[in-house]
């Protein structure tokens, strides 16, 4: 028997034909896989071709980066140096008002105090968020209990030879962050307590928690802020005056507490009965059961929900401008009334600038939540 006709070497590998791999295949599969898809693709490309060049031109090419007033941002009809059909972003407005957008009416000479508060906070946050850095517990204790005191002393002053700055001179990103961070720090522990109250076996506890949660969740935040600013003073004893910002902080904190409680309750409900019973069998008390067994698991489950609540709260801080507190959006609105900067493009570019700041904060938070979710997703992954 001979097997000369059997080939000994492999045939050379050929590249796959362009119809099953490569860019042509990809385009055919993903963009033109049928008549409907092809129409949609062409439509989308048409929309992009129409909008993107105009947008780039408005945002970058025509944009005014440096000017002392709004005149440079006006077309010829408004007395500006530009041709009649010109339009471009007026970034110089945001540049000129940047200090106002950051600090509001906080005195220039004292702004280092705000900066210092911000730097301490940022360093603490970084130490907390990056996992490889040790001593998490002490950082957390510092951030939760010591930092608020330091921040209060630095920002408002009135002691240790620091000049007192009234809260109605605070503004801009400073106020936005103060409102958001207070809301976050207060709402998490209170929300956990309320969620436990709602799941409690004691009828009075349960009823009070349900009532509190459902009432706050059923009304818009702005009614809560109105309540805090016009109704609350009527309920205070004579001689007691709460600062306007403080009243709003209370309103925002209670409001987000109710939402946080519902998120945490979702996590509590997802813990199987065996965990409670196991903890009881070990002889743990109620608070030990909750603190050591149930809450660590429940909170881990609802991290995305908690971060979503934070994001919602951060966006909702803009509402304080309706009751007359200058947050970031409030300073922008105030800045827009400046006649010196009047131009058809000022408002649009100011809003785009503000939107970009809010977007960056919210987007970063949502990405961090996705990252943590993957990180903590242990034990149930297949």
């Amino acid at each position, binding site marked *: 028997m001979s097997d000369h006709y059997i080939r000994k070497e492999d045939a050379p590998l050929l590249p796959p034909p362009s119809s099953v791999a490569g860019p042509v295949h990809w385009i055919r599969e993903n963009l033109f896989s049928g008549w409907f898809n092809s129409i949609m693709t062409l439509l989308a490309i048409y929309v992009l071709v129409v909008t993107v060049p105009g947008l780039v031109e408005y945002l970058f090419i025509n944009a005014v980066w440096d000017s002392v007033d709004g005149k440079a941002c006006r077309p010829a009809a408004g007395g500006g140096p530009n041709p009649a059909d010109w339009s471009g972003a007026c970034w110089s407005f945001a540049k000129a008002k940047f200090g106002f957008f950051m600090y509001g009416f906080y005195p220039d000479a004292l702004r280092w105090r705000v900066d210092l508060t911000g730097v301490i906070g940022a360093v603490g946050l970084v130490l907390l968020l990056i996992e490889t850095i040790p001593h998490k517990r002490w950082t957390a204790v510092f951030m939760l209990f010591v930092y608020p005191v330091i921040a209060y002393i630095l920002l408002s002053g009135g002691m240790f030879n620091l000049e007192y700055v009234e809260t109605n001179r605070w503004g801009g990103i400073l106020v936005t962050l103060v409102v958001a961070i207070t809301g976050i720090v207060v709402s998490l522990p209170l929300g956990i307590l309320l969620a436990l109250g709602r799941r409690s076996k004691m009828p009075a506890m349960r009823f009070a928690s349900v009532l509190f949660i459902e009432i706050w969740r059923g009304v818009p*935040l702005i009614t809560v802020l109105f309540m805090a600013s016009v109704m609350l003073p009527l309920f205070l004893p004579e001689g007691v005056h709460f600062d306007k910002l403080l009243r709003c902080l209370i309103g925002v904190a209670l409001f987000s507490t109710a939402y946080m409680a519902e998120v945490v309750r979702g996590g509590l409900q997802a813990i199987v009965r065996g965990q409670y019973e196991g903890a009881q069998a070990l002889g743990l008390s109620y608070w030990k059961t909750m603190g050591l067994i149930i809450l660590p698991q429940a909170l881990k489950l609802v991290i995305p929900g908690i971060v979503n609540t934070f994001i919602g709260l951060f966006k909702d801080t803009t509402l304080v401008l309706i009751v007359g507190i200058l947050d970031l959006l409030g300073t922008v609105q105030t800045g827009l009334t400046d006649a010196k900067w009047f131009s*058809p493009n000022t408002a649009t570019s100011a809003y785009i600038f503000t939107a970009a700041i809010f977007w960056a904060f919210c987007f970063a938070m949502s990405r961090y939540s996705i990252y943590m979710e993957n990180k903590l997703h242990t034990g149930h992954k297949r």
Partner: protein
Amino acid sequence: MSVSTEKDDSARVPLWNDPNVRGLVSQIVLIAFIVWFGYELFSNYASNIAKRNIATGFGFLSTTAGFSIAQTLIPYTEESSYGQAFLVGLLNTLLVSGIGIFFATILGVLLGIARLSKNWIIAKLATMYVETLRNIPLLLQIYFWYVAVLGVLPMPRNAASLLDSFYLHKRGLSMPKPIFDSAAVIVLLALIAAIVLVVFLSRWSRKRQEATGEQFPVFLSSLGILIALPVVAYFLSGSPIHLEYSVLKGFNFRGGMTLIPEFMALLLALVLYTASFIAEIVRAGIQAVSHGQTEAAGALGLRPGQILRQVVIPQALRVIIPPLTSQYLNLTKNSSLAAAIAYPDVMHTFAGIVLNQTGQAVEIILITMAVYLTISLLTSMFMNWYNAKIALVER
């Protein structure tokens, strides 16, 4: 022996360690605290009211309002009462929320499907839309539309026009208004008859399919009935509906109807913002239907359209409905941001203007909160009912 001692021990648990006693005591403390807190608030309120000489009670609702409102769905003049102003505001809130929910649902569903599309460019564009819009505060978006887009429109004289019947200008969107003659009732009756007919038709066809297996083109015939019947009635009754066009007279448009810019800005922002959340809900709902379901349906010989309608959507709806409800509620509650741009909803007219004029903060804020609370409860009751109807029926 040991058993009995243990029993004795447990009987001698100190009072302060007995869970029942502890529970009772903490509840009594809680109730006492709430009662004390409520009493403190009330007594402070009573003394403050007396000191500042503010009226109490709900008598102010029948006092003359004395201010005008830009958009009224029911007859309202400056001589009307605060109560009527409240009703006007309430209707405006319901109007913008209802229309907003309608459009946000359509846009959100389309975006959600687009994000799952196999078409790369469409999916990316939808993702970009969702990630951008939902990370920007709603109030900022409302200001953007109101100040930066609608605020720089030309005066009525230079209005942008479409088909010579729609005019977009600084004072709003002027468009033709349908005028109904008395004979228009016939058209309305025809429409109702068509709807009843369609309901019966779909029931009959389902029964027939279950009995015989034969299908009936329900969708096309229903569409035919819904269009044909009112149209025939319209011409038979002598065209009782006609349009009144907006005409530019002097500096403003007369006739027709004009949507005020506040309404458009609020609606646009609410729809675009909420749609980005609905898109995510729809996407998650569709993804929750396991691939095996689609494959099994395909193996049974169902066509793609049938798979979508009869297998995927019914199962996805169960996941979608509960979070969708809370988005609807959010939209309704967010419509209160109208106060920022003076759209005359219940927040602006009642908790804004009426509160400023009367100073009765407690009554007015409580009524306003009660309004939103009621809307929330009614919506969630309806959606719970609907959710129970489509929920999985298990053995």
